[in-house]
């Protein structure tokens, strides 16, 4: 009757675009997400799954245990519970850790074991889509690859996701 052929021609395209956008937003909402704790070691960024990290402590006196492996820095008294504290720098081929005012102890569980891990700083705690975590590059150093479970990029930084069970397993061997 007075229909505009151009508008009618485009109407289905417009409708299809709306359907597409709707489907994409539904996928984003349903996509699984994980929490990551990002930390720094020797200027590089690493992460653990947030579900593995119970608590983050400021630096405190670590009591050395003679005879323990080098990766074990010692023991701390955490509210009446004795917790081990380890350094993972050697496993990642990084220089020995040096204490600064930003140093933190992340209490984390892996392989059924719980320990503190000394880090240079806690960078951030983020929620990411599972799909944002990519498998580690094939070019990664073999010595470190057993401890790396994935890689991702966040705020322009490359972050290596570490396998806590593999790290703890190395110490208890």
């Amino acid at each position: 009757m007075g229909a505009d052929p151009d508008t009618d021609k485009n109407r289905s395209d417009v409708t299809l675009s709306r359907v597409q956008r709707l489907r994409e937003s539904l996928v984003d909402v349903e996509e699984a997400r994980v929490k990551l704790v990002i930390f720094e070691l020797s200027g590089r960024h690493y992460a653990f799954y947030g579900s593995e990290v119970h608590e983050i402590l400021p630096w405190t006196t670590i009591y050395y245990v003679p005879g323990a492996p080098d990766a074990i820095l010692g023991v701390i008294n955490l509210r009446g519970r004795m917790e081990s504290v380890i350094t993972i720098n050697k496993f990642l081929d990084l220089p020995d850790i040096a204490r600064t005012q930003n140093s933190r102890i992340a209490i984390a569980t892996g392989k059924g074991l719980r320990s503190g891990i000394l880090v240079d700083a806690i960078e951030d705690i983020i929620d990411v889509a599972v799909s944002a975590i990519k498998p580690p590059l094939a070019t990664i150093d073999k010595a470190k690859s057993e401890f790396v479970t994935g890689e991702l990029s966040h705020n322009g930084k490359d972050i290596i996701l570490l396998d806590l069970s593999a790290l703890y397993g190395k110490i208890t061997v």
Partner: protein
Amino acid sequence: MSKGLEKETGNEEIQILTFIINGVKLGVETAQVEEVMEAEESGKAGTGLHEIMCWSASGGRWKDMTAISFDERIPFCGGPVKYASPKVLLVKDKDTPYGIVIDNLSEIISVNLNSVYPLPPLIAKGRGAKAVWGVALDKAELIMLVDFYR
């Protein structure tokens, strides 16, 4: 009934002889120590079992004692330890006829069993630290507990 409750709440204490090696405070149950002897510099520390002249207060004389330095039995990271004020602990055991050279003998303290903790599992399951069997909490300070028989 009250006696049973007393047993469970445990006012039981252990006596710990404490000493400091390389800045680490350590302790051994006094039940493991026969005698504490003055040690003369032998110059042979770091060579495993070695002969060292010790003053035995109970015998009132100097005598040759086969001894080993603590850090040779339980190593510290950073290499061999230099002993500033060595003493020899004569271990109370017929099958262990030697002394253990320690440093900076401190005091004997009483520690309630409620203040004694096992090592955290990550350390206890690992290699190496077997002779260190637990941790005592004394005035907010941690003391590594050593078993000379291990």
